[in-house]
């Protein structure tokens, strides 16, 4: 097993945002910016001759296609599978054995699995780098990195910004990881959620330990004028043990364009997508909407990571 340390990423795994220091995150974001500015011709040969294993044990649209597009545009090739219906997995092959096999076929593994800790397990089995594309409710580090990249790109900095997070703060892994990552940058955080979906105590404790100032709110409109970033999330029906509980909070926060009239000029609305009804489509046309650009930012961030762990950047 290898941990990320220093700034030489060659051969390293990217499993959890918690493994990355501020310096390492900044380094990755700088490389993403560099790669985004490269012309298509220079990009197209960066990973020539390299093969990426795309091991998606559970379905994913955005992450899988974003990684595949990132790799293809850098001149690399892809093998793998996109559901647990593939032959060996159906036969009950372990994560350990699958990673051992693809270790011999490819140069880098990108993996998503519904079981938490699966990517770290794969990284122990494989000597080639493993990038976690999501392990259950645990980690999705490339999502957090593209969120940070989007914040930096739209605001020119991350340090000291005021970031509001709204919706399902209890089960949403993206907001958990983002809150912890933002603690490296001394951001002021606002958590907007009903009581049943508030930010878990263990995250709040961690933020307090790191000296981060945050507050909890029920009313979305009271934080809109304060924020530089408003991060909306979907309330996920599948997370609720009881449908009646879901009904109580479903549709509780719907951001509409008229709610943004007191927003700061620079304020940007983010969302990990897919959205259901938490951002009305009339927000798409405002200068505040940045969620589609956010999804597109997954490409340079994932390209930077692939190049870094393969020693090509």
């Amino acid at each position: 097993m290898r941990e990320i340390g220093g700034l030489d990423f060659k051969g390293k795994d990217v499993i959890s945002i918690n493994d990355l220091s501020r310096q390492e995150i900044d380094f990755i974001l700088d490389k993403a910016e560099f790669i985004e500015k490269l012309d298509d011709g220079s990009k197209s040969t960066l990973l020539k001759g390299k093969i990426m294993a795309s091991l998606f044990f559970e379905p994913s649209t955005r992450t899988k296609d974003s990684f595949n597009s990132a790799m293809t545009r850098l001149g690399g090739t892809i093998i793998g599978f996109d559901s647990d219906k593939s032959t060996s997995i159906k036969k009950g092959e372990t994560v350990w054995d699958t990673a051992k096999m693809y270790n011999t076929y490819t140069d880098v593994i990108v993996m998503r699995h519904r079981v938490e800790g699966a990517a770290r397990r794969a990284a122990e089995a494989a000597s080639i780098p493993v990038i976690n594309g999501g392990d259950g409710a645990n980690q999705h580090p490339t999502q957090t990195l593209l969120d940070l990249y989007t914040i930096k790109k739209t605001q020119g900095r991350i340090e000291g910004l005021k970031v509001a997070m709204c919706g399902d703060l209890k089960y949403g892994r993206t907001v958990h990881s983002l809150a912890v990552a933002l603690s490296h940058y001394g951001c002021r955080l606002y958590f907007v959620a009903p009581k049943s979906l508030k930010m878990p105590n263990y995250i709040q404790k961690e933020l307090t330990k790191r000296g981060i100032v945050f507050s909890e709110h029920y009313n979305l409109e009271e934080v809109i004028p304060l924020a530089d970033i408003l991060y909306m999330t979907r309330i996920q029906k599948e997370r609720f043990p009881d449908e009646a509980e879901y009904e109580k909070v479903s549709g509780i926060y719907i951001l509409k364009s008229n709610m943004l009239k007191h927003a700061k000029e620079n304020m940007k609305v983010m969302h990990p997508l897919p959205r259901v009804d938490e951002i009305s489509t009339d927000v798409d046309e405002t200068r505040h909407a940045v969620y589609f650009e956010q999804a597109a930012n997954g490409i340079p961030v994932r390209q930077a990571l692939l190049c870094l762990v393969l020693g090509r950047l």
Partner: protein
Amino acid sequence: MAEDRPYKLYKIVNGIVIDHIPRFQALKVIRVLGVDKDHDSIVSIGTNFSSGKMGNKDVIKIENKQLTDDELNKISIIAPTATINWIEKETLVKKHKVELPSILKGIVKCANPNCITRHEDMKTIFYPIRDNDVLRLRCHYCERTFDKEDVEII
């Protein structure tokens, strides 16, 4: 007076005395050591004794028993204040406090049913986190943190 009563447990010739166990934790210690089910010699348990240091404590004496590193680690989770006395021929030959290691391998079962350690044949890895007097354990794989009462010692 009650405070002056000496406490006595069955004297052992060879074995160990585990002293300064937090009160009502002795049975848990006996269970994780497996001597409640499989041990040929005497095991005596004293619970809720008066203690100058701790107020109340439990004590266990186990005859003809040595402790492995894994067993010491297990005791350190349940009874972080425990003292181990090693007895040979009725004489105390070694005495030390248990020490919580910085990493626990294969000692604790993860309480998260969706953790990879519950799905594949592998050893768990946990990191103890001390939060004032509360001990929490963080899983290396699923990264969740549990109160020690919520995890099962293997």
